[in-house]
């Protein structure tokens, strides 16, 4: 068979190869001398701020972290910025000191504030870098709600209303408890708005002592079986910034991450009437 074997091995091929080699060398020099990579978006992430400002506490702690530093075990990382807190009503500003502690082999930095946290007041925490970048977080403290328990000294089957007024949009987590076998057992109640005509900021929880005891103990019980005639109330009243959950991707601190809010806890007791002994005609 006649082969179509027309290859040219002469000067044409050699020139082509030389040109290719020169081209490649030029490409080598000009393409990709810069091989660096910066994986951190330092413009968007600066600090995270976590903290709860307790109205009833003289000292509060704020966790501030430089987001650009990796989380490394047993390694102290320098913090070159400043953290301040400002009372927006009085404009008082305090630069905070920090304390470094090791928790589970990780060094964390908490900033200490002794600024009194007053009700219905906005507080602004600012973390700044030496270069001037900053992250702000604002927390608005709730008002101290007035609590009323009515009626006074209800009996076991009487409906009890506990009113909280005012309650800010941050929310309320009330629990009612009673002593049983030497410890206080707590039951969470869901607050609801007041009735038509009552204040918009009023929140109310309602229960009957007998029903609450039975639900908590998961069996029918009567108030006369309690060791004393005390019921207990504890609750947390949150400021509005605590609406965000920690797992949400909707990070609520611009330029950073975290949650800052204000709250207070209260604990009190009230009495019930245990004089009625349960018998079939009454406690059914």
């Amino acid at each position, binding site marked *: 068979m006649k*082969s179509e074997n027309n290859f*040219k*091995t002469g000067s044409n091929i050699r020139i082509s190869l030389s040109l290719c080699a020169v081209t490649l060398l030029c490409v080598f020099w000009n393409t990709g001398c810069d091989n660096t990579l910066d994986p951190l978006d330092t413009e968007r992430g600066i600090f995270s701020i976590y*903290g709860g400002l307790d109205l009833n506490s003289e000292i509060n702690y704020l*966790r501030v972290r430089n987001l650009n530093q990796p989380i490394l075990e047993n390694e102290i990382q320098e913090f070159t910025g400043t953290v301040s807190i400002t009372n927006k009503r009085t404009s008082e500003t305090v630069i905070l000191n920090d304390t470094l*502690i090791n928790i589970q082999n990780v060094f964390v930095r908490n900033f200490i504030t002794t600024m009194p946290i007053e009700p219905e007041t906005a507080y602004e925490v600012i973390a700044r870098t030496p270069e001037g970048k900053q992250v702000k977080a604002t927390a608005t403290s709730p008002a101290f709600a007035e609590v009323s328990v009515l009626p006074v000294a209800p009996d076991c089957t009487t409906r009890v209303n506990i009113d909280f007024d005012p309650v800010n949009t941050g929310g309320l987590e009330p629990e009612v408890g009673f002593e049983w076998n030497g410890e206080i057992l707590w039951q969470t109640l869901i607050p609801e708005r007041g009735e038509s005509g009552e204040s918009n900021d009023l929140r109310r929880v309602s229960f009957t002592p007998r029903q609450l005891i039975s639900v908590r103990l998961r069996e029918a019980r009567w108030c006369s079986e309690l060791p004393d005639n005390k019921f207990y109330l504890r609750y947390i009243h949150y400021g509005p910034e605590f609406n965000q959950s920690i797992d949400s991707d909707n990070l609520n601190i611009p330029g950073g991450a975290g949650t800052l809010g204000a709250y207070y806890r209260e604990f009190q007791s009230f009495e019930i009437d245990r004089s009625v002994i349960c018998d079939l005609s009454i406690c059914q």
Partner: protein
Amino acid sequence: MDYNLSKFVNRVFVCVLLIIIYLPVSELQAQDRNVFRVIVISGDDGNPIVGANVLLFNGETDDNFDDLFDAGATDSDGRYEFERIEPGNYTLRISYVGHETLIENLQIADGDRIVRRITLRFASSEFDEVVVTERRQISTGDVGVISISAEEINRIPSLVAGGDLSSYLQTVPGVVTAGDRGGDLYIRGGNPSQNLVLVDNMQIFKPFHISNLYSAFPGNMVQTVDLYAGGFAAEYSGATSAIIDVTLRNGNMRHHQSSVTVSPYLTSAQYEGPLKKDRQSIMVQGRYSIMDRYAERIIGEKQEFNFYDVTAKYAFQSESVSCNVTAIRTYDSGQIDPSRNLDLSWSNTVSGVRCLGFDERFNYPVDVSVGYMSYSNSERIDGNPELFSSMNDIFLRFDHKDDVFNFPMDYGFFIGFRSFETILSERFSDFLSLKANRALVKSYAQMEYSIADRFRIQPGIALQFTLETSPTFEPRLRMAYSWGKDDGQEVSLATGIYYQSYEGISDTRDAGTVFTVIKANEYQEQQPRAVHGIAGYEINIGMFELNLEGYVKDHQNIPVSRWTPLARFELETALADGFTYGFDTRVELDAGRFYGQAAYGYSNVEYEAVSESLGAWVEEDIFSYNPGHDQRHKLNIIGSYDFPGFTTNVSWEFSSGRPFTKVYGFDLSLRVPEEDPMTTAGTARTLFSKPFNERLPVQHRLDVSVERTFRFHENVALLAKIGANNIYDRNNIFFYNLNTLQRVDQTPMMPYISLTANLN
């Protein structure tokens, strides 16, 4: 019987019944059709020759070859069939490089049905044939298809003698890898689980090793490889991006041969030989990596992984049937991120039988395959098994061809039974176990029309269904028009709709792992789907071949991991739509001793998903982004020169940077006020910036090899190969470890010497 099962069984019964009824009817109808079929065998090893030139001329002649009746090239089984041959006198001419040309006069009588096994005598002086005459008749409209031979695989510098398919595929424009580790290939915008890899008609899920320099297909085992980067015909279904169809060669049917290879990175041993001369052969090869033991001494870096593969093939051939039994086992384990204690492993076990009946009683050959496939992968942290996923499959496949309205029609069916299992017991999420079983039926039909030997059109349709899903409707169309006697110009088009019955889910945010959850589709409306469109142009200018091809792929229902700030494998997925467009161009020069190829590919991949379902914290409702395999530019230059006594191979690759996601913070989150900052460290989480909003630096790498054969005896030869990958030692980035803020680069300069002893 359950309603779905009843409906499924009915569908399967109808499909099989139609085929069973049609088969004898068509045979009866076409008994008077002339059949002339040749099977070309090599006189060297007794095996079928792929790509032998087969020409049939009108009349009887020894030197006048102008009146051509038909021409073509033998297929992967060494067969070529002359269609619609009329009674008369003909001259048959068969030629192939390295073999003596056969010229034979023959006569076809009315009603003749002839199957000829023709052996071409081996002649080592016949190496000059490089161009097939009558090229326009042979061209088959191959847009979207790259046919790869063992010789082409061997041109790419690789760490093993004979080359490796994995090294070759990385020089193809449109094929993207995340680096030189992990074994994942992205083809024209599609991700690895959207590709279907076949070996001898059996699916093998992930045949690429943990070092991307190796695969289960070394060049010395391969007969042909067809890479369908898109627009594939109806005979292929079950993948929405690409098909890699590998046919292994048979063992030598005439001589016993063995070889042993040693190198600092891999050892291998191979044996092949006849069990019965010209009738039965066996071939066995085993390879084992030793990179983890010796690589550090050579390149200065630990390679904390190893792998092995074992392949065996038994072949039987007679005048009327050929069968082969193939079995492959691969295993990979190790770390692709040396800075983490994250161990990955995966394994494939594939075995099956394929028989081709081409007796003269059949109008066309009958192709039957039955086999088993198993794939599993896992991820361990600090030695504790945490993530596992697997897929197993038993299948039966039938392919046939027949005349419908005097036009040949290919058709077939596939029945498979698959099981899926996934176990996730990660520290940060609850224990999760998923199991599913699926019965899958696929069938197809396609026809081929040819007008004046210039215009060819191949319409087809495929469908597939399970108990849970209704039949898909997958029309396909391929067309080609060729002109120009000397320059062989051709324009071709391919388009089609493609579905997939399972999906692979990987956490693409983490380049340090390739663990993939494989799960069956549960809902019809969420079945992965794609539409392809490809157009190509080819021309031969002297010794140069120029190829230009443009493509678009529109993918729907791509499962992507939800974005969360917490460091954990996210099985919960969102569905994204993907759109890919681009073009490839290639110039090839094959001039005897010199071979050169330059190929450039441009590709643009974009995904789109609902922001809320993706979990991405962006303002817009629909979030568009370029995923991690959106490599815009890729340039490959290959050169090979046969000097007297030795051969040099050079390969240079340049690629633009792929997208990655910046991190904007490492946080220890607290649930205030429940968690006290003075007593609780908090929950570690990585805060990702806008997904894939930055690009890695460009990469380029030069690989070189030189090889020479030393013959010590008629039956003993030593092939010595010396070379280096990344010869100028460029620091090409693999990825960035965000936990340690360490950059992980691809393999530095990797010199090697490989010695292969061949015994005949």
